[in-house]
């Protein structure tokens, strides 16, 4: 029992949402409505926080969380992912005791600190120094604790010169840095963090992630809600996927993240597409596509692809016009729409190029080595080129796949390296002499 930090049992939370008002249609109705308004308003406001217990569910009730149960062991770092409105922030609010559950039970073993927002309680007229004390107290530190850590906090924030100026004179970046510096020096046993890393510039976000990594390594239990999949994968070992108030999946972070990401994909973002019926398959009177798939060299479409995994792209098509050679070209784009590279089957001498290809089903496979692509989502545009002329058929953004940055990287850098490609190249360093005498 003593090594479980957070235990959640059948947690549920319901809210009453606004309902569309009935508009009166007659003048008398409108006048009566106006007179009755105070009574109606009172009833409505009262009902905001009351619910009938006899199980009747009116249409203006939503369950933000429904029967959620899980356990987090001491020292674990768990990520909570999910779409907007899935219930992640509500879960954190309940665990932070800001709002009460409708039913269910939570047991927390250890001092809890929540970071739902940075800079809570900051008053613009007070100086940085005064706000550090105020904010620290609001987050749960005692005055003595703040005294002890004050210099560290100011140092971390980098606003030492301005610490005695009213905070309203700070730039927004400075305010965020100071606020985060206070929050970063909390020493709780359980830390609940809600997307606070969404603010600030890239350098600051890197600092925050670094600090959170430190906190995690110190053996504290952390619950981390975020939309930043890279951060979640870097910091967490386990993840829960919350959808519509319930846990849809949980387990190791990389597989949970992949399932989550894949669920939000459109058709042309999945790693495999098959058209078995030639008459409805994409194409024209010269060629029809049958199948496109991306998969690790020794794996299946849909398996996890890391930056190190060698992959192959398989294209199967029906060649409807015998005689002219048809070769496949791929344009690979990254998630920002920048083209990474193009590659075509016609570049290397191909036996098929020198013969007359028959009509029928063909398969082209392109082998992409590992340690080439950067992490992130990639899309492939497919072109089928007849002879050396223009494309016979082109399918833009035919297929998509995610390349994942595994924690296998030796140096702890949180965040994506820039660059469309991320090749692992050979480096040699040698000692070449003493230098200038």
């Amino acid at each position: 029992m003593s090594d479980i930090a957070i235990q959640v049992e059948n947690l549920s939370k319901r809210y009453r949402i606004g309902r569309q008002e009935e508009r009166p249609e007659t003048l008398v109705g409108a006048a009566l409505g106006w007179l009755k308004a105070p009574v109606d308003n009172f009833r409505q406001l009262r009902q905001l926080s009351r619910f009938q217990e006899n199980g009747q569910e009116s249409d203006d009730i939503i369950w933000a969380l429904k029967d959620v149960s899980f356990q987090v062991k001491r020292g674990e770092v768990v990520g909570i992912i999910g779409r907007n409105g899935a219930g992640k922030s509500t879960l954190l609010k309940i665990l932070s005791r800001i709002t009460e559950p409708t039913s269910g039970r939570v047991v927390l073993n250890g001092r809890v600190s929540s970071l739902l927002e940075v800079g809570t309680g900051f008053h613009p007229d007070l100086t940085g120094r005064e706000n550090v004390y105020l904010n620290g107290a609001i987050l749960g530190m005692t005055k003595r604790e703040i005294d002890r850590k004050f210099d560290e906090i100011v140092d971390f924030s980098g606003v030492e010169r301005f610490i005695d100026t009213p905070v309203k004179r700070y730039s927004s970046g400075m305010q965020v840095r100071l606020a985060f510096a206070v929050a970063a020096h909390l020493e709780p046993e359980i830390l609940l963090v809600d997307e606070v890393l969404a603010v600030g510039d890239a350098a600051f976000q890197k600092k925050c992630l670094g600090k959170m990594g430190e906190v995690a390594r110190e053996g504290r239990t952390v619950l981390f809600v975020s939309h930043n999949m890279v951060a979640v994968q870097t910091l967490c070992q386990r993840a829960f996927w919350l959808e519509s108030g319930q846990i849809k999946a949980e387990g190791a972070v990389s597989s949970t993240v992949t399932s989550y990401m894949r669920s939000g994909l459109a058709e042309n973002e999945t790693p495999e597409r098959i058209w078995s019926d030639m008459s409805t398959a994409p194409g024209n009177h010269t060629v029809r596509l049958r199948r496109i798939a991306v998969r690790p060299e020794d794996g299946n479409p849909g398996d996890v692809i890391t930056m190190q995994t060698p992959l192959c792209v398989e294209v199967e098509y029906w060649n409807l016009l015998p005689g002219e050679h048809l070769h496949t070209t791929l344009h690979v784009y990254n998630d920002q729409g920048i083209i990474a590279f193009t590659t075509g089957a016609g570049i290397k001498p191909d036996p098929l190029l020198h013969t007359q290809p028959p009509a029928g089903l063909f398969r082209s496979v392109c082998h992409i080595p590992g340690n080439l692509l950067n992490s992130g989502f990639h899309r492939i545009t497919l072109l089928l080129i007849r002879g050396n002329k223009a494309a016979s058929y082109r399918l833009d953004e035919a297929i998509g796949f995610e390349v994942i940055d595994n924690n296998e990287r030796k140096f702890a850098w949180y965040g994506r390296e820039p660059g469309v490609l991320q090749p692992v190249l050979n480096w040699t360093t040698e000692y070449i002499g003493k230098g200038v005498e």
Partner: protein
Amino acid sequence: MTPESTVSESILAESPGLALPQPGQDATPEQPVHRTVIQARSGWQLIDWRELQEYRDLFYFLVWRDVKVRYKQTILGFGWAIIQPFFSMIVFSVVFGNLAQIPSDGVPYPIFSYAALVPWTYFSQAMSDSTGSLIGSARMITKVYFPRLIIPMTPVLAKLVDFVVALGILGLLMAWFRLPPTWDILFLPLLVLLMVLTAAGIGMWLSALAIQYRDVRYAVRFLVTLLMYAAPVVWPVSLLAERFGPIARLLYGLYPMAGVIEGFRASLLGTVPMPWDLIGMGAITAVTLFLTGALYFRRMERTFADVA
């Protein structure tokens, strides 16, 4: 895994916080685990004094913030604490003392009204600030946990600073008018306690109501004006007894500020004997307000973050 006994579980459920060592923990002496149980509460709750004690640093900082911020970037700074009662005194002396010729129990009208304005200013400001306090702190309430009771109680304490400053000026005025205080001045802390208790009770009621029904905030503004005339700020209680008799006077004591203000005048200026009857009745109201206010606040507390 040894199951927890239901007895220890229910005890801990009532008072979440520091836990008894759990059965099954190893015997090596380690820091007792700070254990919190969260579940839906129902029914009435009493004030959790132990939790308030835990958060006393935060309470201190919020009061300090209120006091510090109020007069930042002003020219007069703390002078403003004196100006409001002082200028009210001048206007009242002209309007009520001179024009309307309201009797002032044998002392000059200015000091008669100022002695009442000192506690009244505290009470009216504490009441107004307290009412809007939860609404004003909506951001904090929805982002951080701390005992919500701290919020309406902050102005109740913060305004005492202004009160003390105004009281100092009253001392100067007493010297000016050569009116020495009576021995009843020793009871002044009791009057202050009554005043604070009333402000606290009303603050809890109104702040909890205002965050749910926003009308309350607007109503309080004009309620304060009405309450001022209902209190013996500009007129003496002796007028009431003359007009309506002794029973009326006793019932009037149910308004706590009546006892406080008359008590102030009695102990500092010696206008009337110490009105223990009024103070007694006022104490009944004050205690009732405080207890019911606390119960109502604690009951509605769980919904504040949802309706803020």
